[in-house]
């Protein structure tokens, strides 16, 4: 078992080890789980250290024959598209565990599921074999279902079932797509394999590409979630416990956008090009719609949930701009969103634990009572709205830059989402933190304790770092992103273009 496998299965081993600890010793359980997740984080840093940022292809590949008769392999690898998402996952899980310290019921099962979930997420990010990817993709689902359904809020069962049904609806069709793709690959090349690196060379007729793209895209679009498939998200986010929301927003949603970039686009470039106008339109609708709905929310958690719809719209916009700025911006924005929205959910969780309400109107003037909390909240809010100097700005700027070359009109509309984002976030911040401290319940609130500072401090440090010095991140993403774009670009030249304006812009972009 080498670097990546160790990283993927470390949490599983940890989860199994937890079973040996008596269920009454909750503190020991928490410490063990935290220790395991920190070990996994160290391992992810080791992976980053071994990762060669200049090479575009898959690295640290491990292969094991799994079901040889069908060419199914246990194959994992990592490249510039996935390396930081792996890091983000390993980074957020310990924080999510710290945030779970206030859970007192069924701690053992809870920690077991969180660690299992980590294996699922890491596995899906490093899987190179389509079958293996599907397995991990579904493995993510079950622990999350339990986390929402058992430890969630009032309507947790409804939210958990909705989450599973929505995700399954997409992924089952993707499964049929995967089998069909492998079968076609066998018919053409006479080699039975589910290996992405080999199937990616298969060239299918446009018609088949389109159907397969739809099957894959539906699955990923539900996960992103792309408007109008987002309706599971507010329910799941609102009902999930804080750690569940953090992981959901921080990593699971990225699985959708990652899936597009890793599978749907490189496998079916022609179809992706043809579908781009529709997806861009949906992404921009999502940006504006998500922002507007967020503005109207009086529940903090719902507001953050809808802001996710808006932010993920930016990511999709960047991806389907099909140029380096757009794709790099999208990748960067995935990380940003994971950090800033994860932090926002942590913050909402903190005041919910103190006041047992999430209604914005119940707060006001917290600045006087909780200065440290308010300072953290301010930084995270600024990060979320993309203030220059913080990470959000870099991502959104690159995305808009890339998208503008592709379709100026939609980009202009999308940019209005930035403005709307600033409005709803700042308005929310003002209502919660500023103003008179007039509620007696709020006058007894305690400021953040050490554990809570430990949760937010690393995130805030990264928010600053990624805001001022994005180069180490972007440079490692560049080669892999370029590889994906080359695949698309070759199709752009090969097929008649969808709209005439892209020809001109495409040329100018290459001319630069």
């Amino acid at each position, binding site marked *: 078992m080498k670097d990546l496998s160790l990283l993927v299965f470390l949490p599983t081993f940890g989860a199994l080890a937890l079973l040996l600890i008596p269920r009454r010793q909750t503190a020991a359980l928490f410490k063990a789980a935290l220790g395991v997740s920190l070990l996994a984080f160290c391992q992810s840093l080791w992976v980053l250290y071994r990762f060669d940022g200049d090479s575009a292809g898959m690295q640290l590949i491990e292969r094991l024959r*799994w*079901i*040889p*008769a*069908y060419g199914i392999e246990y194959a994992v690898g990592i490249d510039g598209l996935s390396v930081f998402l792996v890091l983000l996952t390993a980074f957020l899980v310990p924080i999510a565990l710290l945030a779970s310290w206030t859970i007192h019921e*069924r701690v053992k*099962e809870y920690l077991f599921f969180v660690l299992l979930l980590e294996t699922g997420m890491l596995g899906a990010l490093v899987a190179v074999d389509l*079958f293996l990817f*599907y*397995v991990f993709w*579904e*493995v993510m*689902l*079950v622990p999350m*279902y*339990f986390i929402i*359904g*058992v430890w969630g809020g009032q309507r*947790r*069962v409804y939210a*958990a*079932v909705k989450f*599973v*049904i929505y995700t*399954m*609806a997409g992924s*089952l*069709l993707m*499964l*049929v797509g995967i*089998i*069909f793709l492998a*079968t076609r690959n066998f018919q053409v090349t006479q080699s039975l394999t589910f290996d992405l690196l080999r199937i990616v060379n298969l060239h299918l007729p446009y018609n088949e590409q389109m159907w397969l793209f739809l099957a894959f895209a539906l699955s990923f679009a539900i996960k992103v979630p792309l408007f109008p498939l987002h309706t599971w998200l507010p329910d799941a986010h609102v009902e999930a416990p804080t750690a569940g929301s953090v992981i959901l927003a921080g990593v699971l949603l990225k699985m959708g956008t990652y899936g597009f970039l890793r599978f749907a686009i490189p496998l079916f470039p022609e179809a992706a090009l043809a579908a781009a106008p529709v997806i861009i339109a949906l992404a921009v609708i999502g940006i504006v719609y998500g922002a507007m709905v967020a503005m109207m929310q009086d529940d903090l958690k719902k507001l953050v949930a809808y802001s996710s719809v808006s932010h993920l719209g930016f990511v999709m916009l960047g991806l389907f701009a099909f140029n380096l700025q757009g794709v790099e911006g999208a990748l960067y924005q995935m990380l940003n969103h994971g950090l800033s929205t994860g932090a926002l959910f942590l913050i909402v969780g903190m005041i919910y634990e103190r006041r047992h309400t999430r209604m914005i109107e119940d707060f006001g003037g917290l600045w006087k009572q909780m200065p440290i909390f308010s300072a953290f909240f301010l930084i995270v809010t600024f990060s979320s709205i993309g203030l220059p100097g913080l990470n959000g700005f870099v991502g959104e700027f690159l995305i808009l830059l890339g998208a503008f070359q592709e379709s100026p009109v939609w980009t202009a509309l999308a940019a209005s989402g930035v403005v709307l984002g600033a409005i709803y976030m700042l308005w929310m911040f003002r209502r919660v933190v500023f103003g008179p401290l007039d509620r007696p319940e709020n006058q007894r609130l305690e400021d953040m304790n050490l554990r809570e500072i430990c949760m937010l401090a690393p995130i805030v440090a990264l928010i600053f770092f990624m805001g001022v010095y994005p180069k180490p991140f972007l440079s490692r993403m560049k080669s892999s992103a370029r590889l994906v774009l080359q695949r698309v670009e070759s199709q752009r030249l090969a097929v008649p273009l969808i709209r005439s304006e892209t020809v001109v812009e495409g040329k100018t972009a290459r001319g630069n």
Partner: protein
Amino acid sequence: METNLTPLLPSAEVLLTALTVLLLDLFVGKGEKGILVWISLAGLALAGGMAVFLRGGQPGAFQTTILLDPFALFFTLLFLVAAALTILSSVQYIREAGIREGEFYVLILLSTFGMILMAAANDLILFFLGLETMSIAVYVLTGMWRERSRAAEAAMKYFLIGAFATGFLLYGIALIFGATGSTHLGRIAAVLTQPKGQGSIFLPAGVLLVLVGLAFKVAAVPFHFWVPDVYDGAPTPVSAFMAVAVKAAAFAGWARIFLFQLAPLQNEWTVLLKALAILTMTVGNVLAIAQSSVKRMLAYSSIAHAGYLLIAVVAGGAAGGQALLFYLLSYGAMTLGAFGVLTALKEGDKDGEAYGDFAGLGFRRPFLGMAMTLFMLSLAGFPPLTGFTGKFYLFRSAIVAGHVDLAIIGALNSLLSVFYYLRVIVMMYMEEGGVEGKPFARAPYLYLAIAVAVVGTVYLGVLPAPALDWSLKSFSSLR
């Protein structure tokens, strides 16, 4: 003429065990019936050992009407394991229900004998004999809980409909005999390959009738109406036995007769079977959602799974045969397990079978909860459990054969099934309360059976390669 009887040995061994238990039952005191369990299990194990030892290479008995080819071996082992797990999980149950122990084990063994004959038969008449031996024993098993009126009703219903189905089957065999002059499958197949062989109208009619007869036995829609009532009324371990072993036996016939020997006629029934598969999956799943009892839900889910299995029959070929055999293994493990957990919930003369009986189970009885969760997830097709792997190969066989539509409908049906399987998990982990007390605090045999099913469900899902190879070899051994 010298007759080679060795291929009969495993089935004969099961029959012998049945007769031994029947005799011993007369002499064993009421408190010592436990010994019968061990004798039954030992007999099954011995039969299994013989089957493995004699595998392949046997010429076949009675002019090759009975074969002990790897195909028959595969099913023999499947039946033996299913019978052993059924016996293990019913020890406590039948004692509490006041069912006569000796006869119960005898009947399980006798029906297993019939099943082995069905899988080994290469002749329609022998197949029919096996089917009847199996069926009659299971009719009685269904009604063995005599104090319960539901059981009597179920047995009666099962018997009448079973007899009806048998009529179809037998008439179909007669027509095939009329058209081809033989009941031996090899000779029928030989007639089919001749240019004029397929001219007669009687042949398709006969095949159709056999198909209907078997459709009754596997509970394909629209021949499924007996299933919910019968499964519901029967003692829970018997329901499990019916859902797994009886269905597998019928599918053994389906594989040998339709997928292999009569494969030249495939075009005649593809459309029909496709409609049957789609109907069976969809009706089974939709009706399962509407159930308020877990036992009835499992009954409808077994209908739905028959539909999935029919996908493989439609697909045909080696891929279809392999997928069919592998899915029978998967389905066997998870269904026996699910019914096993249901058995464990029985309290007094009341089966704990409503969804409400599962409330809070997950945290109060962690092992049962965990096991049931695995079975439900596996039945719903979540990786890395065996239900997923099985479905993967079913869908694959359909796609390879060009039936992409069937794979898509199968996938959508899996989505439907998620609704009701998750409902059990919701009950176990996300609802409080439920039945108090500790049903079956000491049922080591039952727990052993459930544990075996858990291991099977996980193992066949994570490392399916050996079982897949075995399925393929077994199917392609058909001659």
